[in-house]
């Protein structure tokens, strides 16, 4: 008993421990402050937070959940890239092999369900923020950043939807991407775009309209797969990561987690 306590002391006071956790057990206010200030991850937080900000019943913890799910997606997604090739001949068999033989192919399940959960979490987050009117000054800008993040989340999920390259995937994307066809003035079936002509050559056609730009072809095909893969694994995550940094920083600068102004 006592020895255990001694051991604990030993560890906590050892140089190694101290070198990592600058302060010992933060049991004095000063240490508590240092604990937060002294760590890269924690210092996103202010030293002190408004009580309601800690309260589940108030925040529903949805923002944090979204962020955590983003991390989950990053890790599992990264692992999946080991066993996945974004080409029309191998995409499907590779996914199949994740189920049939790959060790811990369950990562795919986690990735997919995580994606669904993230979309929901982000919505609820927005819902809550609106219900507490937390978009009002001085938080207008952060609300906008949030909206963009919401859109990015949807795009992430959308681009990822194609990658298994099964019937579910391509038809969902076909239906989803066909809307771009109707972009006014930019899609080959959009209003007015029929009027954009050179002589009697239509300038906007299936080969060069908004949808083409999105899927890199007249119909879903190899280039779509590759494009979505790149968007899904590089472009959007980077953008989202960057905006998240801003988002968090602003949360703190704008007076902590919501709360009355």
């Amino acid at each position: 008993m006592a020895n255990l306590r001694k051991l604990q002391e030993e560890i906590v006071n050892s140089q190694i421990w101290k070198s990592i956790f600058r302060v010992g057990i933060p049991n004095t206010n000063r240490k508590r402050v240092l604990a937060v200030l002294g760590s890269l991850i924690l210092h996103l937080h202010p030293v002190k937070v408004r009580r309601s900000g800690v309260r589940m019943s108030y925040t529903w913890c949805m923002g944090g959940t979204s962020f955590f799910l983003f991390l989950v997606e990053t890790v599992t997604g990264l692992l999946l890239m080991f066993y996945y090739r974004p080409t029309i001949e191998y995409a499907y068999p590779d996914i199949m092999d994740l189920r049939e033989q790959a060790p811990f192919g369950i990562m795919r399940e986690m990735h997919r369900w995580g994606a669904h959960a993230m979309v929901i979490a982000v919505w609820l987050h927005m819902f809550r923020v609106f219900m507490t009117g937390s978009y009002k000054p001085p938080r207008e800008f952060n609300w906008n950043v949030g909206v963009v993040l919401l859109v990015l989340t949807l795009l992430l999920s959308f681009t990822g939807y194609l990658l298994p390259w099964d019937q579910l995937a391509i038809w969902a994307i076909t239906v989803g991407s066909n809307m771009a066809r109707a972009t006014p003035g930019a899609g080959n079936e959009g209003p007015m775009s029929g009027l954009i002509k050179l002589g009697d050559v239509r300038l906007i056609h299936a080969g060069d309209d908004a949808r083409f730009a999105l899927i890199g072809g007249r119909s879903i095909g190899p280039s779509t797969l590759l494009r979505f893969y790149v968007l899904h694994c590089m472009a959007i995550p980077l953008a989202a990561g960057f905006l998240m940094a801003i988002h968090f920083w602003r949360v703190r600068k704008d007076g902590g987690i919501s709360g009355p102004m």
Partner: protein
Amino acid sequence: MTFIKDFINVLSAASISFVLLSSVFAFIVYFNLFDGKLKSKIGGGFIGFGALLIVAGLFIKPLLYLGITYFLIMFVLAHLGGRLWDHKTGLWMLILGGGFFALSMLDGNFYLIAAKPDNVPIAAMIFLLGFFTWVALRKAYLNDRQMLAGGIPWEKTESDEKLFTWPDLVYTEMLCMIILTIVMIIWSVALRAPLEEAANPTSSPNPAKAPWYFLGLQEMLVYFDPWLAGVVLPTLIIVGLMAIPYIDTNPRGNGYYSFRERKWELGIFLYGFLVLWSFLIITGTFLRGPNWNFFGPYEYWDPNKLVPLVNVDLSEIIWVKMLGMPLPKLWVIREMFGIIFVLGYLGLPPLLAIGPFRRFYQKMGPPRYYVGTFLFLFMMSLPIKMVLRWLFNLKYIVHIQEIFFNV
């Protein structure tokens, strides 16, 4: 048993359930505004509406169902009164709903759809939304009562209570992470991610659905052309969301749950978010079957089901049906009425500014007012078009295929 199922099948038909939800929605949300007098007055209005439905129902069966349910709900709500908010009644109703959902799982057809791995999260979302709406409104209600009694909202009381991030916040966060991880793992073990046969460009599955979070849009596509439902409206949704902080200048209700202080914002937002977005997603997921036909929750998705989907344009209604003459060749003339209608609709804001919305106009000032009402009108165009479709099979108000311009 089967009667209940049929009842629900009919009731959940997009047209009925949508009208029901929209009307009852107002009642539920604005409930905590009512003091006795107002309640009786408005309640009377609602009852009148219900009676109307019943009468119509004598001729059209679905409407009868609608009317009956409508009355039931009204009765329940009126009876519950404020207890919906200040006691856990709402929660109980949710739990009951959950129980009913679980019970429905015994029905083969229901199970087939609801138990699809990809649909599970959406089912979960229904309840999360319900729960959080309730939480929010309840807290709003409590705060409002406090403020009515001259107090201050709960959040304010502790607004200057500060806690140390370490350990309080950090600790809670860690716990959340751990628990979430557990949830994710168990979910993944319990449900296999779906994998269908290899992509095949030549045979499309029936129904071919977009990812579930876009099913709202896909549902809109039934009523609007792609360029509106698929491009313009989504853009406006995003723009609208971003514009909110700049349009809504109401300084109160900032950082705490309150309803009284933000009736309009909340009303509109909830309607848009719950009814126009979430509800449409749920319909698109659970109630749209092969050939995008509508199926009640207990119906079998029969690919051979046939439903007449004949629609007419406004121009046809007016020129052919009313005036009994052929459609004019020139589209400007042909679509004259439609164009006038649309322009008229978009021209409403100034009229409203001097009319009912005068108060807003003065409070917000022209730019805010116009942007706001413009967005609002666009939002409302969806339900309006839906109702028009159901009532008159109206396809297009303006139909200029010459330039793909259809409204």
